């Protein structure tokens, strides 16, 4: 069985939502589409207030090399183009559309297609037009990721089905419910990389998904499955690649540099949808869980839907939540309101009735080394913390602090509750600024 070194075991709480089939959430009456819901340049809006738009129509075009299209997920009328609060925590440009409930789609929507008849360029173009980005959290435009400099040097396409964050079950549901589309999506990607083998990588707490997929791809020559030990953060790109291929790379490199491309389950399924069914990226699969809810669910939500309408599927709260997390509890982001549109960079929604970390008492570090044994990157978090607190950038760099992937393992295991990961997140940008200022000084 495949695995990586260090890492931690976390109470996974997946049993809450794991057996809940994916339910479809009705879109809101007013749909909101941020122009920035991916990494890279913001999309440029290409509709006017008052325009009628169709389901699947591009309303914001990718602007620049690293950018992505934004599509309307309903039919209706453009009400306004204005700044609104998004999941990123800031106000930014959004297109607001009044949903007419008719779901009139663009021409060609939903037409079946055989990927074998398409060329690599055509597949990339379909993926780009469909507005597909990495749905594992990074939201990097997929058409860019799938166009490395030397496609023939890629020998592994890894589909990341680790889903190692606690509570999250949406990828698991997709693997079970959309097995065929997943494999089709992977075949589409493999068409772009003549020398590559596709491997669907699954943690061993999802054995049934592993078995189902394994039997479905049995007679496909270039697709395999791999079972990995359940350990956090197995789903981290560097841990996944290391576990499967034994290859290592650092923060200054891309997976493509070691011959790998990693895509998330939902991303691959979205590619399958776009290429084989002419259905662009219109929805997000989310897990809704946490002890503040009455019930738990896995849902399919159209992008642009208001979060408040999403939680109606589980009849709302049991208790008033103290903590709202977008994403998993290890790396997700705490947000302070649910009055937001679901976007490509949305993730699970985890609500806690009590915030487990609001009253943590921090005492002196006792040098116990638990953070060291936990760190998947082989760092010495407690020393990095000292350097970070002293704003000693040189020392921080010497300790390889810039390699930190902010996985949260060190903070999770610390008996004295040091705010390790929080400091490392802050240091990420601080060190970058510092290095930039150094270069500028040198230039002068």
């Amino acid at each position, binding site marked *: 069985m495949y695995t990586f070194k260090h890492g931690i075991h976390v109470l996974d709480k997946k049993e809450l939502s794991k057996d809940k089939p994916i339910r479809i959430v009705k879109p809101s009456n007013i749909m909101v589409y941020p122009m920035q819901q991916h990494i890279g340049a913001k999309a440029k809006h290409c509709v006017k207030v008052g325009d009628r738009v169709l389901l699947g129509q591009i309303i914001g075009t990718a602007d620049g090399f690293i950018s992505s299209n934004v599509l309307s997920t309903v039919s209706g009328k453009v009400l306004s183009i204005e700044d609104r609060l998004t999941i990123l925590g800031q106000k930014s440009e959004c297109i607001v559309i009044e949903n007419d409930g008719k779901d009139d789609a663009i021409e060609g929507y939903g037409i079946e297609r055989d990927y074998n008849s398409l060329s690599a360029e055509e597949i990339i173009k379909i993926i780009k037009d469909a507005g597909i980005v990495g749905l594992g959290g990074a939201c990097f435009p997929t058409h860019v990721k799938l166009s490395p400099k030397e496609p023939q040097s890629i020998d592994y396409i890894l589909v990341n089905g680790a889903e190692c964050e606690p509570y999250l079950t949406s990828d698991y549901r997709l693997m079970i419910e959309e097995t065929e589309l997943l494999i089709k999506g992977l075949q589409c990607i493999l068409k772009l990389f003549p020398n590559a083998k596709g491997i669907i990588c699954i943690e061993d707490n999802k054995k049934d998904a592993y078995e189902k997929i394994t039997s479905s791809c049995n007679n496909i020559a270039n697709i395999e499955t791999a079972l990995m030990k359940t350990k956090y953060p197995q789903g981290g790109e*560097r841990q996944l690649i290391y576990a499967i291929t034994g290859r*290592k790379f650092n923060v200054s490199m891309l997976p493509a540099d070691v011959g790998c491309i990693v895509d998330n389950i939902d991303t691959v399924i979205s590619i399958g949808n776009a290429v084989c069914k002419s259905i662009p990226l219109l929805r997000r699969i989310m897990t809704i869980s946490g002890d503040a809810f009455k019930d738990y669910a896995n849902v399919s939500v159209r992008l642009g839907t208001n979060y408040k309408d999403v939680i109606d599927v589980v009849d709302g709260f049991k208790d008033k939540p103290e903590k709202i*997390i977008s994403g998993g*509890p290890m790396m997700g982001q705490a947000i302070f309101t649910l*009055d937001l549109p679901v976007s490509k960079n949305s993730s699970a929604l985890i609500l806690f009735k009590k915030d487990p970390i609001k009253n943590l008492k921090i005492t002196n*570090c006792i040098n116990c080394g638990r953070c060291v044994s936990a760190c998947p990157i082989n760092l010495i978090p407690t020393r990095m913390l000292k350097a970070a607190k002293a704003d000693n950038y040189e020392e921080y760099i010497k300790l390889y602090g810039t390699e930190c992937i902010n996985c949260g393992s060190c903070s999770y295991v610390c008996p004295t509750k040091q705010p390790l990961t929080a400091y490392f997140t802050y240091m990420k940008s601080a060190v970058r600024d510092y290095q930039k200022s150094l270069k500028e000084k040198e230039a002068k």
Partner: protein
Amino acid sequence: MDNNIYVQSSPHIRDDINTRLIMLDVIIALLPATIWGVLRFGMHSLLIIIITVATAIISETLFNLIVKKPNSITDLSCVVTGLILALNMPSEIPLFVPVVGAVFSIIIAKMLFGGLGQNFINPALAGRCFCHISFTALMNNFKSTMSVDVYTSATPLSLLKESKEVNLLDLVFGYIPGTIGEVSAICLLIGAIYLLVKKVIDFKIPLFCLISFVVFIMLFSNKTTNMNYIMGELFGGGLLFAVFFMATDYVTAPITPLGKILYGILIGVLTGIFRLYGKTNENLSYVILILNLFVPLIDSLTIPTAFGRERK
């Protein structure tokens, strides 16, 4: 929505582990040796243990009161310090010695540096060495009123020095003279296994210390194949107690994996040198204490290379 929503940086969940639970595990691990010590050496040793631990708790409380800091005794680290110090006392020692030792351990070696985590030498060891320097005769007197079953009050190490045989069974089960807590190899090993299984301590320091020690005395003593001698050195003189319960003290040991190995080897070799060529047998504590001072250096020299980076 409303203002009772908390927004902090990830991760949003934490393990339940805390310092108190860790210290509690250390106390549990010391129980077999403690109970054996009391059974074997009698009520006076129990009194020593109670008084030492109480002194440690009171010292820390008073110190915190005086410097107006929140009381830190609930983390139980002062109980561990007191207990380890008491277990390092000869069973007949007058009570004032461990009391002085406990005050020194807590106030001088720990609290004045800023409390648990900020001290750079092991408080219990510092207390023991302080007592040893100040009350040498008392600290070296292992005559026990209880040990009529033992033919001599000479410790195994002094027997070995005179090239006499030691009774290995006595050694393993703890029918030897010595400090309250160090005499039973079996009790100490039970505690050590508990700590290893519960992942409270890491195996590297004790393992590499014991290996390097045995290798060293095999190479440099002229009794390489004398099993009685080797086992006597290994199980006598508090080596097991020191490597499992004092050398593994988090705060004063290296944190890097390689540093731990190096530290273990250094303790093993230095102890070997002192045992073979030193005059007294009371040196293990000094070895660890001296090496405590080098821990920051060992750590900075052994920072591991990050995942995916080239070794510099």
